[in-house]
């Protein structure tokens, strides 16, 4: 038990260190992010004054980088909740250090993604019309409902499992942080005392949220795909879009999680907790979804390319051979095949290999979102020359600001919240010491990687201690 206490104390000090110790590099990074965000805000102010005239979107290609960013960010928001919920549901015993970061990514990516829809609006000041005159028949309304529900659920799913850790921060950091953070901890810890009954309640809440959040998350990106699929456009009006978007969302979500984990691990020396095993398992998850994405893409493009209807032929050519060919083939070879190969070859089955695969995937998935939006609109509907679109500096600035705000919110969150799930990790460690056969953990991970979610057993975030108590 002695070693456990030591381990636990070391974990606490390593986690709180991220919150308490702020180096000049942190301020430099923060300053950089604020500059990028500031530029984006300034550019948006210009757009607010002049209208969407300042973008390169026009009547024929009427959606561009903003909608791409919307789809991309809502996509990476699936990192979190869905992955951490799947891992929880499948009782993957290695999940604890991963979940908190994943859940933060979710909430923050959702906020950023949703704001890009407003940025794309011609009359953002009329946003309330959506509530005043909303029509349930419109795919946009489905999105508004799905995303607000998902955001609410993910904030609960982020904050509920954080309660014990916030209570720990409340008790341990009371003299070390200022009044604001003390208030935050006191408020969000909800009078947590750590009694068995509270643990039981919390366990129930987490289980319920986990079960609710999986279908919500799946529905969200399906509904996002329906914005496109519900139109009469070649390349968009396909029933595979929901599957393609959800799989792509989880795919890019895992990739983003890997990248952010790698960065935090480096900066805060969390090597002990975010081990090679975590990266490899997530890498296998990535490879599995990569393989699935290849399958979905073959399904889609073979049917289109084999039949080659008139408009379909145009869509096919611009993607495979002409304007968008470089993007498309980078996506297929680098983004889908790449991670599979990197995970198959033993030499690249390392942390560096996984991170490289993740970066490839993120890039490729951004390009995929981009060419899906733009090529779908570019197919001529009437006898006219195909339009062209290339985002302006202003659009790129606002786009970059989106990433900056995403990074900024995570950067700020590190200084407030425990980014490692201390109590869950301790619990996991405890179980490991108690002598859980290592093979079982591997099996669970393999199941997750293989089938996405295996929930045949009724899932519960079983605390051994609590089970005894109840």
């Amino acid at each position, binding site marked *: 038990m002695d070693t*456990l*206490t030591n381990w636990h104390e070391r974990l*606490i000090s390593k986690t709180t260190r991220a919150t308490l110790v702020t180096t000049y590099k942190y301020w430099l990074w923060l300053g950089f992010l604020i500059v990028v965000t500031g530029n984006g805000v300034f550019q948006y102010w210009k757009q607010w004054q*002049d*209208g*969407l005239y300042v*973008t390169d*979107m*026009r*009547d*024929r290609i*009427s*959606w561009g980088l903003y909608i791409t960013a919307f789809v991309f960010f809502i996509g990476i928001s699936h990192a979190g909740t869905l992955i951490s919920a799947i891992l929880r549901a499948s009782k993957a015993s290695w999940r604890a250090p991963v979940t908190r970061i994943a859940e933060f990514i979710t909430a923050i990516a959702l906020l950023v993604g949703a704001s890009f829809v407003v940025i*794309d609006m*011609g*009359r953002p000041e*009329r946003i309330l*019309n*959506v509530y*005043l*005159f909303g*029509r*349930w*028949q*419109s795919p*946009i309304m489905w999105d*508004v*409902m799905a995303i*607000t529900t998902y955001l*609410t659920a993910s904030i*609960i799913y982020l904050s509920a499992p954080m309660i*014990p850790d916030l209570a*720990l921060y409340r008790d341990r950091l009371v003299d070390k942080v200022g009044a604001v953070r003390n208030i935050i901890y006191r408020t969000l810890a909800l*009078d*947590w*005392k750590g*009694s068995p*009954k*509270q*643990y039981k*309640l*919390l366990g129930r809440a987490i289980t319920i949220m986990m079960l609710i959040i999986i279908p919500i998350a799946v529905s969200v990106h399906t509904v996002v795909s329906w*914005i*496109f699929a*519900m139109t*009469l*456009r070649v390349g968009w009006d396909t029933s595979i879009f929901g599957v393609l978007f959800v799989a792509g969302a989880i795919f890019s979500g895992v990739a983003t999680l890997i990248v952010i984990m790698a960065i935090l691990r480096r900066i805060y020396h969390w090597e002990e907790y975010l081990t090679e095993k975590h990266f490899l398992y997530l890498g296998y998850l990535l490879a599995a979804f990569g393989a699935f994405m290849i399958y979905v893409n073959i399904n889609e493009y073979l049917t289109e390319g084999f039949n080659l209807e008139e408009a379909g032929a145009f869509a096919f050519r611009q993607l495979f051979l002409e304007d968008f060919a470089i993007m498309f083939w980078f996506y297929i070879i680098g983004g889908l095949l790449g991670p599979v190969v990197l995970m198959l070859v033993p030499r690249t089955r390392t942390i560096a290999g996984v991170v490289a695969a993740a970066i490839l995937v993120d890039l490729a998935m951004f390009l995929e979102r981009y060419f899906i939006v733009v090529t779908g*609109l570019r197919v*001529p509907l009437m*006898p006219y020359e195909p339009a062209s679109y290339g985002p302006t500096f202003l659009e790129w600035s606002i786009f970059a600001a989106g990433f900056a705000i995403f990074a900024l919110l995570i950067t700020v969150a590190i200084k407030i919240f425990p980014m490692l799930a201390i*109590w869950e990790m*301790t619990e996991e460690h*405890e*179980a490991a010491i*108690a002598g*859980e056969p290592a093979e079982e953990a591997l099996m669970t991970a393999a199941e997750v990687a293989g089938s996405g979610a295996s929930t045949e057993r009724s899932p519960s975030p*079983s*605390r051994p*201690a609590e089970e*005894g108590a109840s």
Partner: protein
Amino acid sequence: MSDDAGPAEGPPAPLGEVPISIDSVDRRGALKLLGLGALGAVPLMASAKVMDGLVRDIVKGSMYEIQAAHPDTPREFGRIRQWTMVIDLAKCDGCQSQGTPPQCTTACIEGHFAPQPMEWIEVYEAELNGGGTQFIPTPCQQCENPPCVKVCPVGATFPSPEGTVLIDQDRCIGCRICMAACPYDRRFFNWGTPPVPPEAALADYNPDHQTPASRGTVMKCDFCPEMARDGTLPYCIQACPNDAVWYGDLEEDIATNGRTVVKATRLISGNSGYRLKEHLGTRPRVYYLPGHGEDVGRDTHDEGRMPTEWPWIERAEGAVTWTR
């Protein structure tokens, strides 16, 4: 996790304190968790309006009723109509023979002050099988099953009892999903602040004529229902030098090109009328009679058509224009 890890002493470390009154603490804890759950009410409340509409529509079976626009929007519908246009392509030479831009487009731009580069009725030049081209004047198709209306999140675009699809620019939020949905490329967006000449600035806004235009909203051909109610023909038809465009009412089964009055259905069926992209099931109210301007002496290989102009733009102060 192993099940045999005995009834341990709760979680480790920080939680050293013994809860004094387990019950009261837990009740509070539970209540606060419930309070967190109340957050979930936000999206629910947000969608209450939408759900209300859904339930009402299911109960009343009124899914296809007009999702009418803002109650304050001035609107006078006449009687039940089905305004229609029949465009005789055999008579349309894109105004090649008289060396002007297509007069229908020009008149429409003049009449509606359509901002550059909007061509609410646009004359497309399509390739013919075997070479050569034909001209296809294309207004909004005023679909009976309009894809744009289906996708609009706020009911800013709506079908009227007169068989037109209109846009309430006072309500439009500029999301542009209708432009993605329209399979005929017939919707235009005010990307910048649209040019408004002095005479248009004084007009009382109304979805029937869409003047004055406002930034960040969608516009399109409205079929000039006001003019039809007043007994005049739409600008495009008045301006056509070859009387190629017919305007009428399928409800009354009548159509005129300004010279002759005919039975609309006979005009369509007797001349093998067709509609654009019929296979999409949008059921347009614009019909085409096949041809390539042969009735007015155009050869399929005649080339050169004057580009469209927006002459009044010069009168609009500080006009911003863009390209399509």
